[in-house]
């Protein structure tokens, strides 16, 4: 995973709530067997409308998505995170994320930042008035900064440490191999098995 420390970029205001992962990346894109090449599928249906915010010339090259509440609901597809990253987004800001999407994002180095809706509103107003306005997402100081906006955000220390260092979860877990072996040894015999022993 790529490490995330701090990022500054222009933003896309997405004034929609309940953006489900079917909207982020429609199901027919899920037939691919790689983690890349999803950028053209990002918000595919909405992008057919030339007025959709992502299509506006002033939003090209923006890297921070500022979305409405309940972003990433629905399907567990990690492809939604890959699509956002493939397109160029480094961070997503919302007042509430769906659990599975949030977990997926943090495992891929896409920083999802929870801010109060009031702050999201302020960011929307700022970047709608001035598309050149930059937003800084600083994981080291756990702070979002933009003109007239300074807001701290929470992220548990363990997730933050993994992100700052770009650490791979599997190798961290395998350091505790002894614990896994010990647990396996005491599992009851009635637990289900998919194969004959």
């Amino acid at each position: 995973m790529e490490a995330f420390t701090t990022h500054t970029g222009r933003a896309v205001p997405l004034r929609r709530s309940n953006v489900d992962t079917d909207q982020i990346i429609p199901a027919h894109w899920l037939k691919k067997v790689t983690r890349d090449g999803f950028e053209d599928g990002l918000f595919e249906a909405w992008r057919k409308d030339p007025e959709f915010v992502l299509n506006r010339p002033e939003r090209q090259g923006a890297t921070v998505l500022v979305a409405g509440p309940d972003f990433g609901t629905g399907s567990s597809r990690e492809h939604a995170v890959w699509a956002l990253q493939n397109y160029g987004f480094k961070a997503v800001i919302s007042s509430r994320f769906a659990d599975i999407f949030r977990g997926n994002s943090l495992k891929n180095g896409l920083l999802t930042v929870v801010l109060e809706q009031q702050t999201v509103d302020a960011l929307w107003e700022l970047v709608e008035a001035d598309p050149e306005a930059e937003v800084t997402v600083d994981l080291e100081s756990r702070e979002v900064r933009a003109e007239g906006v300074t807001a701290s955000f929470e992220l548990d220390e363990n997730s933050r440490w993994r992100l700052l260092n770009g650490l791979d979860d599997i190798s961290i877990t395998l350091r505790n191999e002894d614990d896994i072996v010990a647990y396996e040894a005491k599992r009851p015999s009635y637990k289900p098995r998919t194969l004959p022993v």
Partner: protein
Amino acid sequence: MGRTLAEKVWDDHVVRRAEGEPDLLFIDLHLLHEVTSPQAFDGLRKSGRKVRRLDLTIATEDHNTPTLDIDKPIADPVSRAQLETLRRNCAEFGVRLHPLGDVEQGVVHVVGPQLGLTQPGTTVVCGDSHTSTHGAFGALAFGIGTSQVEHVLATQTLPMARPKTMAITVDGELPEGVTAKDLILAIIARIGTGGGQGYILEYRGPAIEKLSMEARMTICNMSIEAGARAGMIAPDETTFAYLKDRPHAPEGADWDAAVAYWKTLRTDEDAVFDAEVVIDAAELSPFVTWGTNPGQGAPLSASVPDPASYEDASERLAAENALKYMGLEAGQPLRSIGVDTVFVGSCTNGRIEDLRAAASVLKSRKVADGVRMLVVPGSARVGLQAVEEGLDVVFKEAGAEWRHAGCSMCLGMNPDQLAPGERSASTSNRNFEGRQGKGGRTHLVSPQVAAATAVLGHLASPADLADADTPAPAGV
């Protein structure tokens, strides 16, 4: 202090607990399918890792599979390639696979329970958000992303922060004609698509205890639609009777030991939930969705709401967008909404009891002219059982299409899709924009409402059919 059901199952699976770290949980059962696993197997290959516990892993094919002509090569080359990738990965790593055409193939969340692999007090994961289905057995079951699929394949564990717990207590008894689907749609409308976010839900109370395993699975299945990763129901005699003699259920002394453990899996009297919602079952009636998220629902007897009636600005905007997408007017009675397609199937409502319910409504009746009805069993086994009971004949005589098992029209990944602008009554779980095909419009319903809607051509319940069957008295 006592513990909740979720806390008991969680505690029994902690491999490692350390200050400042998420708990490391052992996973008892890992279900795989073709869509969310290819990149995980790739990851294993790149790092030279193996599947740690092949005996706790099983795969099937469901999302991409066609439900017609399953003995012919799959027409879509991309779908075919994804299925072939799963077959190659399972062969290379030694994972048990039930491919298309196999008698145990089907929607992954129908297959696990029917094999008896889903058991009380187990942890179950799958790269699919509807893994919450398995919570109906008192299992802690949740959907995971592909990175986590790789993690479980490699380590049989997952680092997880413990969610909070929420009790959803359903008092009273469901009225005649009101189903588990109506109940869960009403719950989601009440608490919202984000209401369960950060929680494990426990459905409890007299109305839940009376439900069959199939109905409990319908409820737990849609926990994710309320934002909760997992939903659970305490195991009881209904659960044990369902599991007894299933292929992977414990036998002999193991059965006795298992049941003794399963009986301990109840929330203690003095346990405290972080939140509680109480629903009165007696107040419920058939429930359908009108919008583009599963929380946008209402009783069938109601009308499409007026977006202006929402105080919250973001809800108001969401309702406006939904009405526009769905092609509906505020104030329009829900019963006046005509449909083109009716879909009975999916991990929500594709089990034998669901097919029986739809067939009982369709028997001696016909699907309305101009309406297409698809009936898709949740698994090949469910299909065989339905044929044995003659349900396929009922469906075909009514003019419905009887198909092979798969996810089918629940999501737009296989040939079963809505055309742009087409409207469906669907027993599946998501009414998102384009979910059933680009531009398609979905109303989520129970199997009974689906069947009645197919007959009348507009959203309807079986009670409306009884009215339609009885000619109005002369002179009225």
